[in-house]
C-alpha cells in the first residue's frame, strides 16, 4: 500500500494546532491517554530490566543501588513519581474508556436532532466522568507523592 502524503499518521493525535480543546475534555483525555501510555511503556521497560538486577546481582546490589535511589528526592525518584502519575491517569481514564467504549455506558440514547443540536453523548454522564477522572487522578497522585516522599 502506498503511503498518502496528506496522512498525518500518529503525529495527528499530538497535533494541537486546529484542534479545539475548549469545552472538549474528550480530546484532552485522548491526548493525555496517549502521552501517559508512551511514558508507561518506557517505565515498563526500565522497571522490568531494573528489577531483574534482583536475579542477576543479588539483594545487596538491589538495596544499595535500586532502593537507595527511592529514599530521597532525585531525578530517578522524580521519574518514578511521574510514572506513577501516568499509571494512575492511564488506569482511571482506561476504566472510563472500558465503560464508555467497550460497554457503551454513559453515552445517552439516540434522539431526534433539534436545533441547537447537541449530541446526546456530550450530554451524557461520560463527560462528568472525565472531570471525575481528572479530579481523582490529582488526588491519588498527590497521595502517592505523600507516601513516597513525606511518609
Amino acid at each position, binding site marked *: *500500500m502506498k503511503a498518502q502524503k496528506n496522512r498525518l499518521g500518529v503525529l495527528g493525535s499530538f497535533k494541537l494546532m486546529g484542534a479545539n480543546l475548549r469545552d472538549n475534555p474528550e480530546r484532552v483525555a485522548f491526548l493525555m491517554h496517549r502521552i501517559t501510555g508512551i511514558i508507561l*511503556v518506557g517505565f515498563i521497560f526500565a522497571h522490568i530490566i531494573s*528489577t531483574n538486577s534482583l*536475579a542477576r546481582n543479588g539483594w545487596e546490589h538491589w538495596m544499595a543501588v535500586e532502593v537507595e535511589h527511592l529514599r530521597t528526592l532525585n531525578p530517578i525518584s522524580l521519574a518514578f513519581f511521574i510514572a506513577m502519575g501516568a499509571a494512575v491517569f492511564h488506569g482511571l481514564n*482506561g*476504566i472510563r474508556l472500558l465503560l464508555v467504549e467497550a460497554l457503551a455506558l454513559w453515552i445517552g440514547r439516540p434522539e431526534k436532532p433539534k436545533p441547537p443540536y447537541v449530541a446526546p453523548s456530550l450530554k451524557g454522564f461520560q463527560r462528568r466522568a472525565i472531570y471525575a477522572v481528572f479530579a481523582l487522578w490529582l488526588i491519588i497522585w498527590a497521595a502517592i507523592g505523600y507516601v513516597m516522599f513525606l511518609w
Partner: protein
Amino acid sequence: MKAGTSAILQYLTAFLLVFLISWHMALRFPPVYGVESFPETLSPEVLYKEISTSWLLLSLLLVATVLHGINGIRTMLLEWNASDSWRLLVNGASLLAAVVLCAIGIHTIVAVVPP
C-alpha cells in the same frame, strides 16, 4: 493481527490490569507490611515473600502489562505509515520486544534467591 482482535486484546488486558496494577501499587503502601516508609516495602524479606507467594499473579501482571503496552505502541506506530514493509517491521519488533521483556521478567521471578 486484525484491528478488531487487537482492540479486544487491549480491552481484556486493560480490564485485568486495573485489578493487578492496583494490587501491585497497594503493596507499596507502608501499613500493608507494618513498616515505616515506602523504601522499606522494597526490603529483601518483604519482596522475597511477595515474589514466592504471589509469583502467579506477578507473572500474569507481567504478561498483561507487556501485551497491553507493546500492542498500544504498535497501534500508534501503525498509524504513522501504511506501507507493508513498515507494518512487517513494526509487528516483528513488537513481537520480539514482547518475548524479550516477558523472558526477563520471568527470569526475575524464577531466579531470585532467598535473602
